[in-house]
């Protein structure tokens, strides 16, 4: 039942905000406090879930809820967590909570805090639901729940180009969702069940090769839009650039993970032959994404847009890991997901702080010398950038390294030479990644500051510290001791791929 509580808490919180302002929580500060309390309680529930989780049996779905929902068409309200979803659940709850902490002092321009709080809570419902759902249709419902709140967050609190960005975001992802739904229903109808655990246990038995190939293509495209995979990524830079800080953090930190999580959770185990058929293509698009994203970053002049493009590259590593169809590759993908959530979340928080202080995210207007005009801000940016470029000892490295390891020896059914070439190209992509992050640090933090430096640029508010510290600590923890995460995921990943 703890998982029902996990999704019900933010939902009830959002519903409570429907009570007119005059009767309940007058004033924006009270509303944000209420949001922080609700998401804090949700985080507490998520941590409790992690605490009661039996790590010895991480490959079994635990703490499950399985009720009939619409029996006439076989829908069930089926939730559960295993080692694959648990880290993402905790990450999502953490990021949402940190967003509310950040909102307490740094509300985006556009007012209407009550609406924003409610939307973010609904967003949390959708994300947590997606990561815990074990019924295909239920999964899809939660998957779609996030769209409208995020659309509204971008469209109402976004930057100057928000209307176009929000429209592109929702239309593009809806298009992907359409394909996803068709693919899922194809699997559900042909296999005769919508239960994801049953489908995973069958490993594609009972589905013809043609159906599998078709279903993987449809579902894969749907998830690839969300991930995003090159060349389906163009909604992302616009959405990120225009979204307010909290929107960017949640979009990059948790929302994108739904795409790669979906591939691992739904597409890989239920239609393995389809996966094997499309894996080289997936790998190809992944490495193109890595190099393309890095090159695009080298030429960006906007801080947030640069971070957005870096996500394309990082998700490329995640997809490359998945494409190898090996336990180590999928481990890499899950590790990369968490690492990207922590690091890019931090990067967007910092980028938001830069934009708030200097009034622009344009690198040319910002000039340099951030290390002397705002040393701590620049220090945190440096930390996040170095983590993001994959320095060993910080979170970003392990996902990339394991993806390369997987690509060097992919699943036996895949063409090895092709994947070794992917590995080499991805390695070059890692150099380019370092290049653009160092270019960013060099132009932004080094040199002398452009006068006049805004008043109070150097001061970091307590709220900012509170929002950054957990992400910094998490980056260090999983970076220095990757065992924390790998021990949780390795078992279930092996089971998922049909190994021992």
């Amino acid at each position, binding site marked *: 039942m703890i998982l029902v509580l996990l999704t019900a808490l933010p939902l009830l919180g959002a519903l409570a905000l429907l009570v007119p302002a005059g009767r309940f929580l007058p004033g924006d500060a009270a509303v944000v406090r209420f949001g922080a309390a609700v998401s804090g309680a949700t985080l507490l529930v998520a941590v409790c879930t992690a605490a009661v989780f039996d790590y010895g049996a991480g490959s079994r779905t635990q703490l499950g809820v399985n009720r009939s929902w619409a029996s006439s068409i076989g829908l069930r309200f089926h939730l559960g967590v295993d080692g694959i979803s648990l880290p993402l659940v905790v990450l999502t709850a953490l990021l949402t909570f940190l967003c509310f902490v950040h909102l307490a002092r740094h509300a985006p321009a556009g007012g209407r805090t009550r609406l924003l709080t409610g939307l973010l809570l609904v967003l949390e419902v959708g994300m947590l639901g997606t990561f815990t759902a074990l019924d295909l249709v239920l999964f899809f419902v939660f998957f779609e729940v996030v769209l409208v709140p995020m659309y509204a967050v971008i469209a109402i609190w976004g930057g100057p180009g928000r209307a176009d960005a929000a429209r592109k975001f929702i239309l593009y992802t809806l298009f992907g969702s359409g394909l996803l739904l068709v693919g899922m229903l194809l699997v559900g109808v042909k296999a005769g069940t919508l239960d994801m655990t049953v489908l995973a246990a069958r490993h594609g038995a009972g589905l013809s090769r043609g159906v599998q190939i078709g279903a993987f293509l449809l579902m894969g495209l749907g998830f690839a839009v969300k991930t995003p995979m090159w*060349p389906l990524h163009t909604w992302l830079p616009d959405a990120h650039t225009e979204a307010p800080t909290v929107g960017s953090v949640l979009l990059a930190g948790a929302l994108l993970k739904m795409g790669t999580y979906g591939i691992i959770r739904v597409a890989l185990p239920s239609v393995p032959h389809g996966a094997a058929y499309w894996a080289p293509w997936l790998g190809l698009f992944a490495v193109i994404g890595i190099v393309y994203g890095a090159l695009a970053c080298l030429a960006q002049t906007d801080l947030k847009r640069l971070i957005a493009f870096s996500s394309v590259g990082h998700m490329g590593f995640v997809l490359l890991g998945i494409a190898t169809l090996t336990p180590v590759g999928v481990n890499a993908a899950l590790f990369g997901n968490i690492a990207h959530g922590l690091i890019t979340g931090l990067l967007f928080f910092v980028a938001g702080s830069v934009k708030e202080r200097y009034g622009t995210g344009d690198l040319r207007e910002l000039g340099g010398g951030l290390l*002397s005009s705002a040393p701590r801000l620049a220090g945190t940016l440096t930390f996040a950038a170095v983590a993001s470029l994959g320095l060993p000892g910080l979170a970003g490295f392990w996902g990339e390294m*394991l993806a*390369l390891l997987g690509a060097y020896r992919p699943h036996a059914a895949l063409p090895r030479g092709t994947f070794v070439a992917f590995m080499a190209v991805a*390695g070059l992509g890692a150099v380019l990644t*370092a290049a653009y992050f*160092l270019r960013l640090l*060099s132009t932004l933090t080094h040199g002398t500051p452009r006068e006049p430096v805004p008043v109070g640029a150097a001061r970091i508010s307590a709220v900012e510290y509170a929002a950054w510290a957990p992400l910094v600590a998490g980056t260090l923890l999983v970076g220095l001791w990757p065992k924390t995460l790998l021990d949780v995921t390795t078992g279930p990943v092996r089971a998922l791929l049909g190994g021992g």
Partner: protein
Amino acid sequence: MIVLAALIVLLPFAAAVAGLLAGPRVTRLLGGAPATAAPEGHTVVTDAEAGADPDAVQEGATPPAAARFGLRNGPALLACVPAGAAFVLAAIVGLTLWRSPHPRSGALTVVDTGAVPIRVAFQVDGLAALLGVLVCAVALAVQLYSVAYMAKDPRYSSYAAFVSLFTAAMLLVVFSRDLLLLYVGWEIMGVCSYFLIGHHWEDRANSRAAVKAFLVTRLGDVGFLIGILVLGVGASTFDIPTLLRRLDVLPHGTLVAAALLLLAGVAGKSAQFPLHTWLPDAMAGPTPISALIHAATMVAAGIYVVARLYPLYLAAPAALAVLGVLAVVSMVGAALAALAQDDLKRVLAYSTISQLAVMAAGLAVGAKSAAIFHLVAHGAFKAVLFLAAGCVIFVTGTNLLAGHGGLRTRMPLTFAAMTVGFAALAGVPPVSGWFSKDAVIEGAQHAATHGGHLPAPGPHDAISGLGEGGAALSPHVKPGPITIVSETWTIPAIPTGIAWLIYLALLLTVALTAAYAMRAWLLTFFGDYRGTGEPREAPRVMSWTIAALAVPAAILGFFGLGADELRPHPVSALLGVALLAAGAAATYLVWKRDPAADPARVLGRVRPVLARAFLVDELYAAAVVRPVRRLAHGVAVVDRQDVDGAVTGTARLTRRLADVVRRPGGGDPQSYLTGVLAGVVVIVAVVVVFL
């Protein structure tokens, strides 16, 4: 023992974390005043190192601020105490290994990755213990020296913390038993070098140098990482001793590929051609950092890794041949470039490239112990040279040789230390560098003259010369077609031609090294002082440190007398001394004619080419940097116009289609009625015609 090794690594790491988080706070806690106010508004835009400490330079030899409240300087305590403790522990480990030289190892934990597991494991053998002592000694010296050298720096705290982190990373490389763990230390060193070289980031040039150092080494590191993966997946383990035992399971092609890929990383870190270009620019960092990078960490890591994985290279002689050729190019090229530099630190930088190439050459011809011997000796004398150069720069306020001169009488202690350093660099007997370089030359000579046709393999293996893991590792190497083990030399099966090339290049380098060392020595300490002000000896913390370091730099060579292959041999020793004398004498004679002028003037038209190191930087800029930048802009344009253009184009197309479809429903009753009528007509017509 493993706990000790882990502690040696963790102590500087803890120091780094503490220093980064709470350095200045400790000072306040102890009641001392922070060195300088917060860095806001602090701007220093001057020529590299010289301008880094403008106040200190003007102040001359007065005791700097940090010395004044000595024990109350929080960051300094946080940096020096752990470094000292690590040094003591490393010395204990070294002594223990000296007395009973069998390797010890142990694992803390195993990380299951889903494929090849990663072990957090340490190994202490003779090689690791020796390097451990060297690294800790140099790190301690650098930390102590920096307390005075960086006393005026507002960011001393973060500087000292990064030095600690750097040390910890190098020690992790030294003691690691697992290749991936080694890689972690390897990369962290890269990023520390980025932070430290870019320490004076107010100047864009320093920032560029830092970025360059990180990117060039990272390029090599990608090869290194892939090499590790190739080896690890092939042998199903990243554990170094196990892996070296399983070498014969791997196909020969895989071995060669892995060895070559690893060489990419080695060339990057040890600054060998073609990835050497970052090192001279790295002089942008504060001088103690140059000492740290050049003497004991970073550049030593590459040579160390080849030595650590030596059985792999013996089994893949093609890779050794490649290493030998790269070494020849780096050795001679860098020595020539050093001849024409007008910046004291850049002379030393090119000399580092050249000397590292000597070590690499030693490895290539199978003289592993000699190469390690030279690594240690070089660590000692290069630390002296850089720290002494730091003193010179500290008091004269410039890096340029043109601003030095006549410092012999003004800075007697620095002069003495630096003389020892230059003598060791050039290989003047009986200073350390002479012994170690001679051992390498002897090895090359042996490989050139005996390569390929040696007497029957003997049972005794010379690699155990330094009493370390070589003995434990080498028995697993297949003798015979691949390796020839004689009584004193392990000669890998590299082509005899390459062995000859290496030998001749080594001899040429001896003469060139003597020439440029002589030039720098003369220009710095003799003739008339060409700078401004009245230079006096540097603060005591600095001059004592270099004096203390000069002792091992001078006498270290005698420790080699215990091993047969490290002992000087008459033929090569005489030849070496003759070449040395020729090189030094040539410079001296040119200088004598006009002590005020630079002896490099005789190079004539070649001089600018040498000064710019054969224009390799310009070549890379044209061949790599600019194309990548153009490509990046191309991608950005394509992304906006084509990839995103397709998306927005779809939207536009949809809207246009919608317009077409909408037209019949435009709200005009007349057209509706016309439509209805037309429909009726069509239906009637169909019914009439077909039924």
